[in-house]
């Protein structure tokens, strides 16, 4: 039984028994991650008709995505897996979205705020560029790619991790995938007298 958790956009959770989706819950609110994460997990377990103790692995989305919300799902997945001693699969969100498009030649992008996009491109099921932060006008250099909305959810995270785990892809890096450094410059200190 796999529990997948993703807070890259809204707050969503999914439970899989093998390849079979037993339950999916999604809260659309893009700001209510901390509020919704508990109910999203409790409700998806109830929908799937299983108890927490029956979960055998946890999958989480590790971004790129707006990080304040993303970290809520990552923290919940990490502690859930730690508490039960379960393996945790950490999935790059754009990979999970691309996986649903098979071997198509695609450019997956999602909102990175500040008028920028998180971008990755795929061909024949392989990532060939990214993830990177780009300005919308920079996308024109990628010719011949079908543009795909990178909005992700726990079902996509779960499906990708099931395939990746079976295919020997390494999903063990459980840190958030940051593409920008924290938004600050060291302070020089300024004079108070003119």
């Amino acid at each position, binding site marked *: 039984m796999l529990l997948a958790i993703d807070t890259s956009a809204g707050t969503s959770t999914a439970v899989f028994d093998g390849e079979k989706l037993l339950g999916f819950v999604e809260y659309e609110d893009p700001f209510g991650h*901390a509020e919704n994460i508990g109910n999203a997990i409790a409700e998806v377990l109830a929908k799937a008709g299983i108890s*927490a103790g029956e979960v055998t692995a946890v999958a989480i989305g590790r971004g790129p995505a707006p990080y304040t919300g993303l970290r809520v799902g990552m923290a*919940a997945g990490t502690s859930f897996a730690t*508490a039960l001693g379960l393996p945790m699969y950490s999935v790059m969100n754009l990979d999970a979205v691309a996986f649903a498009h098979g071997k198509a030649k695609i450019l997956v992008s999602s909102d990175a705020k500040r008028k920028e996009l998180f971008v990755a491109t795929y061909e024949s099921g392989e990532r060939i560029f990214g993830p990177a932060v780009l300005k919308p006008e920079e996308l024109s250099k990628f010719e011949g790619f079908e543009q795909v909305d990178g909005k992700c959810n726990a079902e996509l995270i779960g499906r990708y991790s099931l395939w990746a785990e079976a295919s020997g892809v390494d999903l063990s890096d459980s840190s958030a995938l940051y593409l920008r450094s924290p938004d*600050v410059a060291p302070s020089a200190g300024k004079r108070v007298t003119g």
Partner: protein
Amino acid sequence: MQFLELGKEHLTTVMDLEQKLFPEDAWSATSMASELDASHTYYLGVFDPELIGYAGLSTSAGSFSSDIQTIGIALESRGQGLGRKLMQQLIAKARELGSEQLMLEVRADNQAAISLYLDLGFVQIDVRKRYYQPAGVDALIMRLPIKQPIVLGIESTCDETGVGIVQGNRLLANALHSSMDEHSKYGGVVPEVAARAHLEAIRPTLEKALAEAKLSMSDIDAIAVANGPGLAGALMVGIGAAKGLALAHNKPLYAVNHLVGHVGADVLERGAVELPTIALLVSGGHTSLLLVRHLLNDVELLGETIDDAAGEAFDKVARVLGLPYPGGPQIDRLAADGEVTIRFPRGLTLPKDMEKHRYDFSFSGLKTAVARHVEKAQDAGEDFSKADVAASFREAVVDVLLTKAINACKDFGVNRLLLGGGVVANARLREEAQKRCDANGIELRIPRFQLCTDNGAMIAALGSQLVMAGRQPSGLGFGSESTLEVTQVQTP
């Protein structure tokens, strides 16, 4: 029929019944008066409408043990289960106070009482020969073990990731990961840096706490998490982690107030927070003066900083003096070699300010005054003593903090002052606090430093108080509350 807590105002009534019940060996009125009045005892009476029974419990702080002092039911009211009811309430009280056992002595010939105690779970552990005189009857010593809840607490309000574990009022683990070093190049806490560090630290800190307590997650009875006040992005990591933990093992979850947690930390030092108390919480994020009458029900914010927190002022002045972050220890070290030669301003202490802001603080003017002093000397090419500036600045901060805290103690007639928060590490603050408290007949409490700075154990301790008091867990839907009021000890 009514159960009421007894106080010294009930002395005459209690003594009447005491003398009737124990004609041979009744307590003296003096003993009874001090029992009813003492802060470490809890006496309960049952009235119908006259007093028909009473029982007393004694709990010395820090012993994790309570004693049944006495129990008596009027002859004509026996056989109605009143003794059992009184005992059950005293057991509940002992549990709430964090005791891990309840002891009593009973006459070996009092078969009715012995069977009641056995039925309530007491076990005979010893006999005292001919303990009851003049009859020469043995006393059986009986003990009821009380299993206190094991609570795991998560703290992530600022730059410290803390996971603490307590059982009742006993500290089992206090694991901490600080991101302070990562903030040093920025000269202050950067919220995004702090939030990133929390996520990375959550697993290792959790594992460290469990290893320290020699427990596994299945041993934990409840989870507590600080949901405010603090940095939203940082709080959200702790909340996510706490909800994941609680759901993994289907444990009750308590969302608790970080600032009240600082006050609650003292239960881990001496088994209880003695109340009422004034609490002065001083850190890089807070400068708050609280009046705590009851840890769970009655916490009042008397005042707080209207601009910078005291710890922040230390950081800013350290920067003015060319010292690294965090500024507190740097200034403390430098000031040790200096003298208080400059009278820097004490914010909000002028008569007109004291009317409106008697218990509020302001440190931004002080920081500016220090910067102006330093810049003036530097511009004039004068040689000046950084150590003297540090000592004078520190003195101004300490003076205003303690003046207002002691005022609060006097104004409210509360002769206890509890310090908390990272700035308590400041040697001069501790020394001067002791001096002024001694001069004013105020008892000063300063928990050990690891319990003063932000930590998970204090959150666990406050959660444990809620569990022991029988409070309902929080729902799963709470979020981060950056500006959570101190009056909200638990978020439902």
